[in-house]
């Protein structure tokens, strides 16, 4: 890697224009078992070089799957030609990129070597055992599936203005699904984890056996459960649901490219957008939560990642930036530029997005709730530039007079993120990042994580109408 970095640096320094060369090699392995049969056991390699140039204030990009100097030089010329081809059409030329501290050296997250040395056959054995155990936990369960996926990332980013970062990291994910049927009512439940690091850290703090037990129990409980009565309600959101809210409904609206397009967060820096109980961050590493699914030491522009405070005690204080948007806003880049594969252009993306914990216990928050729902088990969500969000939840429990009184089928919750965050009146001390198995989609996928404490708020819960 070091020798390749040196060669790429020589090529980038020969460029007549600003340029960024990014070598990316990803190897991944996947195993999947369903109903006792191995459905997938595979490995994949994708490697190549992506080159971005800035010519007369216009971006150009080209990629090649070859990393030889000749191929890289050819792609560099192509990227320059691309930029030149649309330069006369671009109205607002990109300003010179801000001078900032560029990353130089090696940036390796722990776990890469250890995980790569563990045989795939051993991982497959655990996946088979977990699937079988899940399937046999109850006579109501008629099918189960389990999958494991890991990715090893090797990257080099060099730029004409000084970056030369060599990075390595390994990410892994483990997913379980249980399918149950009781008296003709069917249900499916999912449990998953995702981390950056070793096999062992993937199952810390929840073992695969614990995940299997939870998936099986949930599927059985959901089959035959009642439904939520839809309407505006008091909700206690679990860390996973808070993670969805932080990522989808707040995080995307503060990505500077969306801000420039007119997202709901535009022009709101310095204003109160949430309850004073809310402090929200997005970082390459989370203090106290090691091995998070979105951990990253350096971004794909060669900028060291920050732990960026976005909302401080209810006040919006920062957006997420790449180098171009940082120049426009006159701030430092936040290390948020990420590309999925070598042939993708870096975009502004989140890493680990979370709300800081508070001082109350979950038990106290439930005990002080007269009527409402405890909402847990995120199963996907979306939000748009208005901050309007939709999240699916697998588990909904009705609370009455401070006690959980009924378990219900999953539901969807919705609202406007800043409005919902302004209604928060309780934040728990319990804290968890719970979305490490998720991918964010924004034209390209990105591995992210998100979470936080339990929070109590008001939002609309979807359900039946009589």
């Amino acid at each position, binding site marked *: 890697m070091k020798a390749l970095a040196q060669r790429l640096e020589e090529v980038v320094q020969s460029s007549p224009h600003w340029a960024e060369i990014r070598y990316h090699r990803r190897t991944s392995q996947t195993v999947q078992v369903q109903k006792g049969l191995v459905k997938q056991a595979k490995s994949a390699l994708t490697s190549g070089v992506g080159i971005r140039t800035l010519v007369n204030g216009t971006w150009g*990009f080209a990629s090649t799957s070859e990393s030889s100097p000749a191929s890289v030089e050819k792609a560099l010329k192509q990227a320059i030609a691309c930029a030149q081809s*649309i330069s006369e059409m671009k109205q607002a030329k990109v300003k010179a990129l801000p001078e900032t501290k560029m990353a130089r050296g090696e940036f390796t997250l722990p776990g890469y070597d250890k995980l790569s040395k563990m045989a795939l056959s051993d991982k497959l054995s655990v996946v088979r055992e977990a699937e079988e155990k899940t399937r046999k936990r109850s006579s109501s369960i008629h099918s189960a599936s389990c999958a494991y996926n890991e990715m090893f990332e090797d990257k080099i980013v060099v730029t004409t203005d000084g970056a030369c970062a060599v990075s390595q990291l390994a990410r892994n994910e483990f997913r379980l699904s249980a399918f149950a049927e009781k008296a003709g009512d069917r249900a499916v439940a999912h449990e998953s984890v995702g981390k950056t690091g070793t096999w062992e850290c993937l199952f810390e703090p929840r073992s695969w056996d614990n995940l299997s037990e939870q998936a099986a129990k949930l599927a059985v409980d959901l089959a035959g459960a009642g439904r939520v009565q839809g309407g505006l309600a008091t909700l206690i959101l679990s860390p996973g649901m808070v993670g969805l809210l932080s990522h989808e409904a707040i995080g995307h609206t503060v990505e500077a490219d969306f801000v420039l397009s*007119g997202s709901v967060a535009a022009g709101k820096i310095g204003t109160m957008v949430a309850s004073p109980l809310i402090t929200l961050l997005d970082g390459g590493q989370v203090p106290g939560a090691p091995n998070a699914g979105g951990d990253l030491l350096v971004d794909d522009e060669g900028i060291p990642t920050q732990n960026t405070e976005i909302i401080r005690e209810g006040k919006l204080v920062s957006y997420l930036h790449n180098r171009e948007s940082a120049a426009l806003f006159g701030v430092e880049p936040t290390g948020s530029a990420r590309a999925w594969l070598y042939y993708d252009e870096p975009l502004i993306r989140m890493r680990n997005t979370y709300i800081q914990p508070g001082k109350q216990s979950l038990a106290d928050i439930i005990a002080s709730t007269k009527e409402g729902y405890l909402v847990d088990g995120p199963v996907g969500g979306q939000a748009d530039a208005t901050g*309007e969000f939709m999240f*699916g939840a697998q588990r909904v429990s009705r609370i009455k007079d401070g006690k959980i009184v009924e378990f219900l089928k999953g539901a969807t919750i919705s609202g406007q993120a800043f409005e919902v965050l302004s209604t928060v009146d309780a934040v728990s001390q319990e804290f968890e990042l719970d979305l490490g198995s998720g991918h964010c989609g924004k034209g390209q996928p990105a591995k992210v994580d998100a979470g936080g404490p339990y929070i109590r708020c008001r939002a609309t819960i*979807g359900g039946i109408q009589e």
Partner: protein
Amino acid sequence: MNTFLAPETGTLEQAAELLLASAKKAGATHAEVCGTFSEQTRITLEKQDFHLASSNDGFQLGLRVMCGAKAGFASANSTAKDDLQTLAKQAVEIALFSPENALLAIGPNQGENEAKSFFPESDLHRFPLQKQKAWAQELMTCAVSAPRFRLNEGSVEVSSSLFLVASSLGTHKVEQEHQAGWSLMGMGVDGDNITSFDYFSEMARHSRDVGQRLSATTKAFCEDVVRGLKTGPGKSYKGFVFFSPRAVIDIFMSGLSTHLNGRSVVENTGKWKLTDREQKVLDAAVSLKDLPHALDRSGACRFDREGATTANRSLVDKGVLKSFVVDQYAANALKIPSTGNSVGGPAGLPSAGAHCLVLEGGKEPLKKLQEDIFSRQNECLWVNRFSGQVDSVTGDFSGVAKGAEWWVKGERAYYVKETLISGNIFECLGSALAHLSKETQVLHASWEAPTLISGAVSVTTK
């Protein structure tokens, strides 16, 4: 076959041959290669301006091996001899430690290429950049000149691609495809009042089909988005709801496609079993087809991911279940022939899926259906898009009605925000189906649907 991409076709075929030979040498009983080559030039718009021009090309190869009844798979984006030999060894190594699963067996010989190209003649191979720039300029002009429309991202892309499937059992098929595509994402902005993001994409297989369509589709999209700025309050109720073709695709057709998937039958995770074929499963107004030979659609293909010949197929006819979509795995498990519905690319194992779903329209025009519904219900939600979940097992759906309109006495009054809908796709397409409109719409140059009106949907507002 035409002679475009001849050198790349040669490289891909040589790589496939080497992979098959290397797999056999490494101990595989049988092997299958899926390979692609693609090259594209793309001009991207962002924030009301030109953003980036890019050029990418590359190969991708995936190798599936069987060592007896044990299966392994490996892929790489290289055609170098050493890399391919390593790939073959990896796939065999994986197979050797995997437990036996005979259902993963590679399909029978699917034959050689047909002489005639599947797709119509195209002038888009290595298309002049100057003309592509003119299209990008037109996309930009349409978007920025639309009052109160804010362009977030858009692109014009011209691409050429090759798709190859070859196996040790004698299958050898290659197809090439050339496309121009354009897309736009943006929102309506009027001071502090903003709409949700919306997105559209279109494609054509010849340059003559781009110009006017690009302008017309972009203008129509921008006008639609801006209309969403006029908002008002909705109401919670249970009753009739209109679903636009796009919402029908998002909720009902994507939901149904899961249950029509042969693999759901194998795993017993879907609603229907093999014995449900020829049984009435939905309302008699529902007819659903898969049309891989609709050449104007982006899902069109002559052969599938495993080389099996595709065919236009009725899946549900007048409410009667006619066929599932079946790949070789489901075919092996269910002991029925593959329907040519193996989907996926060379980077992964094949799975089953529909190529190009079409839900047929009803007999009456939408206008007449509106009159009927508003004679029974004064106010009504009209869902244009859906952001939510459709439970893959139960068919329950729940989510936000995006770009949703509130209609009063047959007239659109305004748009509503933060409105949740829930229901069940089988109920909505069964006992609660009120109407399907005669008019249909093709979305993203792919799936096609009419407007659907159902009477069993819960609507929840703040």
